[in-house]
Each structure stands twice: as C-alpha cells, then as structure tokens.
C-alpha cells in the first residue's frame, strides 16, 4: 500500500504537478465550487490555471464573483489576493453548441457538406441536447485546451448528472449513436430512394424502417438520414479524436478529484465511480467530501474556569440543539467511514461553511478548509483522529 500521506497533501501535489484535473460527482455536492477553489489555490501558488465549467445556469460565474463568463477563457482579477509570481486564473463556461459547430467545421472538407449539417433541422434541434453531447463536448474542448500553452493547469468541472459516472460513459454512447456503419443500414436506402424501398438488408431493418416512417414521418426521417450521411465522412475523424481524449484521460498528467456530500447515497455513488476509475486505469487523486457536519462536542475548546449557569428553559433548548447536531454528525461519520473502509482512501473533509461561497474571498476561504494549515501535521503526528 502507498504511504499514508494526508489526503490534502496529495491534492496539493496534484495541483502543483498535473496538467489536467477533472472534478466529478453527482449533482448538488459543490463540484463547481470545489473546482473553482482548487483552481484559485493553484493560481495563487503561481500556476497559470484555467477553470472550465459546463454549466447551463452559470454557477461558476456566481462563485467567481461577478460578470458573465463565455465560451472563451477570461482572466479573473486576482491582484488583491497577492498571487505568487506568474500565477493567473482564467475561467470559462463550455458552449456546447459552439463546440459542436467547431467540431463539424474541423472535420468537414467541403463547404457543401458543412452547410448540410449545420442547416439540418435535426442537427439544429438536437446538437445541444444529444444525450452525452455535454460530456462529449467537454472532453473535446478539454483536448483543445490542453494544447493551449497559456495554461499550466486546466481544472474541468463536469456536467451535473444524476449519476456521476455518466461523464465517463457518455462519449461512448454518443459515438455509438453516430456510428453510421450501423445506422445507415436502415436509413440510407430511405435517403437514396426518398421513399420506402424493398432494398433493406434485413427483415428487422425493414420493420424498423416501416415503423420509423409510420411514427416519425417521411420528412423527419429524411432529415435524420441526411444528418447521418453528413456525419459519415466525419466519423473517422470523430473516432480518432475520441481515442485522443481517452489517451488524455488515462495520461499520468491527468487526475480525477471525486467530489461528494456526506450523505450515504451520495458516497455510494462516489465509491462506485472510484472503482470504475481504477478499472479504466485513470488516475485518482482524492475524494473531497463537502458540507460535513461536525459534532460540536468533538471540537477542541479552551477549558474555562467558570461554571455555566443558564435558565432551565434555555438549557433544555441547548441540549436539544446539541443532540440534533450530534445525530447528524454521527450518521455522516458512519457513511464516510464506510467509504474509507471500502476504498482504503481517506477523503478530504470540508466542514459546512459559515457562509455560502459566492465570491473570490469565499473561494479562498473554502480552499483553506480543503488545505488546512498545520492541522494535517498535527493529525499525522498524533497518528489518529
């Protein structure tokens, strides 16, 4: 087993050395905030960092303070925070449609083919909504950004999915869908003849076709076949690109940070994701568990001299309040302990914040909790928690 370095230290090393960090996790666990805080941390330490989010509701903009972010990297003003020499922070949001369009442009040779796709109604309606297109475009964009030498580190926030794992599997699904070698076999004859012909390869294909005609109509089917035919010439380019993305994700310079909350179902999801990462031979950097409710009785306090005296009514309320928070802390501790046992990893635990994060200061304060000064050493010296 690897030496038991503190989980924060391992994250810190990754921030200093890796080229790409991908923040994954199910929705609502503070993934965007974590990604932004990690990026800020690395920028303040002197790296040139880009944080990229896939965010229809522009949450990153909220946590980076003000202004709107776009599909192009924008420098974030860090002056007041005294970054180390050379440190800079850039932020952007992924423009799914724009990235898809750019991809089409890159892979089509002639203008006619390009127009055929871009003007295709099916493409227009669905390119942003295609299942997996957010994830696929995120990876596509990532590949492009890694070739941009303005950035030493790219922190990628991933789309909010119900299941964190969707991020890794969506590109395969999208490629499967665009794999015209399978689909054309029932769509192509349609396009060629403009009507249902008997020249379909198999009986199943014929039935599917007849059904498709009955249920979606000729016009739609033609648009659909045009879409696939237009993609036919691009498919090899797409696949080559996808292989590059896979190589990037497996590269030792890429690391995955799994973000979770302290609730059992969320941690189960993180556990599953961890297993899949290892199976796919991708580099796991650490767990960050956000919004952990600590037990107030376990926090150290200076022992005072005076004995407390409060009215009985208040005493009862105080007791109830403490009991409630202890229940919550215990439930969460048990869930986190299960994750530790199952993965043999110690997560970074970020306690619930005093205030919500919605500006750079908040992000910096959040980063302080991820990388607590001094506390880790004390913990290592004490040997236990």
């Amino acid at each position, binding site marked *: 087993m690897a030496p038991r370095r503190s989980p924060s230290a391992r994250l810190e090393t990754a921030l200093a050395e890796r080229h790409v960090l991908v923040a994954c996790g199910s*929705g*609502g*666990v503070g993934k965007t*905030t974590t990604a932004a805080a990690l990026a800020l941390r690395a920028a303040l330490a002197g790296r040139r960092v880009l944080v990229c989010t896939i965010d*229809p509701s522009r*949450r990153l903009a*909220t946590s980076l303070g003000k202004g709107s972010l776009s599909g192009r990297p924008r420098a974030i003003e860090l002056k007041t925070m005294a970054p180390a020499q050379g440190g800079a922070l850039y932020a952007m949001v992924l423009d799914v449609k724009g990235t898809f369009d750019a991809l089409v442009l890159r892979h089509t040779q002639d203008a006619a083919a390009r127009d055929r796709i871009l003007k295709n*109604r*099916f493409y227009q*309606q*669905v390119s942003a*909504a295609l*299942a*997996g*297109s*957010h994830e696929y475009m995120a990876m596509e964009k990532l590949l492009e950004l890694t070739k941009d030498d303005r950035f030493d580190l790219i922190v990628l926030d991933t*789309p*909010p999915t*119900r299941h964190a794992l969707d991020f890794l599997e969506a590109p395969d*699904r*999208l490629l*499967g*869908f665009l794999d015209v070698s*399978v*689909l054309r076999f*029932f769509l192509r004859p349609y396009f060629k003849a403009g009507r249902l012909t008997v020249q379909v390869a198999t*009986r*199943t*294909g014929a*039935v*599917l076709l007849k*059904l498709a*005609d*009955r*249920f*979606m*109509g*000729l016009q*739609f089917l033609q*648009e659909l076949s045009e879409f696939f035919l237009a993609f036919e010439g691009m498919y090899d380019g797409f696949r080559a690109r996808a292989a590059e993305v896979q190589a990037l994700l497996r590269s030792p310079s890429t690391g995955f940070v799994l973000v979770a909350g302290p609730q059992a179902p969320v941690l*189960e999801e993180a556990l599953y994701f961890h297993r899949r990462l290892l199976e796919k031979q991708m580099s796991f950097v650490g767990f960050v568990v956000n919004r952990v409710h600590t037990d*107030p009785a376990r926090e150290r*306090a200076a022992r*005072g*001299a005076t004995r*407390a*005296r*409060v009215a009985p009514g*208040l005493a009862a*309320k*105080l007791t109830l*309040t*403490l009991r*409630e*928070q202890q*229940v*919550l802390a215990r439930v969460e501790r048990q869930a986190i302990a299960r994750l530790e046992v199952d993965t043999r990893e110690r997560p970074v635990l970020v306690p619930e914040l*005093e205030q*919500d994060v*919605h500006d750079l200061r908040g992000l910096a304060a959040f980063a302080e909790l991820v990388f607590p000064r001094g506390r880790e050493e004390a913990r290592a010296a004490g040997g236990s928690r």
Partner: protein
Amino acid sequence: MLLDSLFARRLVVLTGKGGVGKSVVGASLALAARERGKRVLLVEVATPLEASRRLGGPPSHGRAVEVQPGLHALNLDPQGVMDEYVRHVVPIDLVARRILASPIYRRFFAAAPGLKELMVLGKIMVLEEARRRLSREPLYDLIVVDAPATGHGLAYLKVPLAASRAIPVGPIGHNARRILQLLRDPARTALVVVAAPEEMAVVEAVELFHAAEAEVDVVPQAVVLNGCHERRFSEAEEAEVLRLAKSEADGELQPGVPFPAAVRAARRQIRRRRLTRFYRDRLARTLDTPLVSLPFLFRETLGRDELRTLAGVLEAA
C-alpha cells in the same frame, strides 16, 4: 391552502437542482394527497433510492406498487418504457422480440436525443389518461412526478417542445404535442420548483422559474423551500447564546452534555436559521408565487414517519 390548489390538478411535476431533496418533497406531497383520501401515484425515474422503500413498500421494478392503501409508487426505467412501447406498436410478438434484441435499436435508444425523456413523459400522459374499467373514473386522482435533475432542471420539460418542432408529422410528433398541451394546461398540471436555503440552489430556482415561463410557457405554481432551519431561541435567548459563546464558561448542562459544545451548536442553529430567513425573503421578493418551507430533519433516516411529518407541514401551509 396551497395543497387545495395543487391537488385540484391531475399532475404535480417537481423540478429543481440536484441535492435539494426533490424526492423527499415528492414523497411528502404524495403522502399528503393520500391523507386527503386521493388515489395517488408517485412517479420517479430510474432512481436507486426509491420512494417505495422510504415508504416501507416493495421495490417497484418498473410497475406501480401500492406502498400504502391508496398510495402507489412507480420507478420508471426509460428503457423498459421504450420496450413496452415497441411491444405495443408492433403487434406481432416475434417481430417485436427481434427488434428489441437488435443492436441498432439498443444503440439508437441509448443516445437518441430526447427519446428517453419523451418516452417517460408519454408514459406519464398515458397514466394520466388511464381510466377504471367500469366507472370510467381516473385510475389515479393525482400523479406526482419527481423529474430527474439531469443537467438543467428544464431539460425534461423542453423535450416535447423540441420534438414537436423537429418531428412535424406522425404519431411521435403528435404525441409530443399532446404531452406539451398537458404540461402547459394549468387546469391539469402544476409545476413546482424545489429549492434549498443555499445560494446556488436559490439562484438556480429563480432561473428555473423564469425559464419555465419563457422557454416552455409553463408558469410554476409554487416554490418549496426544503431543509429550513426555523427560529428556536427567542431574541433574548439568542443574545444570551452569543454572549455565552464569547465567555469562558465550562461544565455540563446535564450529564453528558458539555456546555461549550451546546453553545457552539446553538450558534450554528442561529446562523442556519438566519440563512434560511435570508434566502426565503429573497425568494419571496423575487418570485410572485406561493412559497412553502419544509423543516430540516435531524434524523438517522428519512422514512415513513419523517415523511408524514413533512406531509403535515405541507397540509398546514
């Protein structure tokens, strides 16, 4: 009062950012409707933690199960719904089976844009239309839908709109338009936005609220603020707690209850209840819609008893 308005419809659709407790709100609403004597169906989509389990019933396996008298839960599996649809439109069993086994069909369904969403919404429409055999009364008086929080909260609701535009003719386009009509009909459907008293969740709830109106032409009927912390200490007591927090006082309130820890816990409670008030005020100021608060529950699990508590709060709102 709020429930009078919501339960007058056929369909209550919940939406909101992931992690705000939509499924708990859905189960509580369903329970509240059942308490009023309605026949209720709670629909979830491919969720691992099923409401039927919370409510003490058996797992759904893609079929409606009666978890309590009058309360049914259904955990829809989109692939299962699609398969069922194929079997429905292909009368010849052998052919249907061959289609279902075909890799083209599998791949197409796995990634075809919006197809899963359309199938799930179509199934909900069918359930809404389902009638009892003899009386011709609706099979369910009320259907509560916990729409999955995949991507943008509106992703699901936008699908029928996109489909009705992309597919002008044929039964699929036709059904997409019928689904859209159902969702847009305020007499039949109420959209409810679920939020939590946190910055991001509130920002998203407000965006969702406006986007539903602007992009899908559906005006949400209410906002449920889940996980609220309410005032526990009086003004004077709060002042006392904050003073004690600064003092050096020590000892125990009673055996096993250390005083400094209890004061820390109280300070946290005060901070949380202030945040709750802050975000509730902001929602109330920003959105012209009924706003209901559900309390944060400090429990080991959220089971039947807890859901009943929340249902009671909704009933009193």
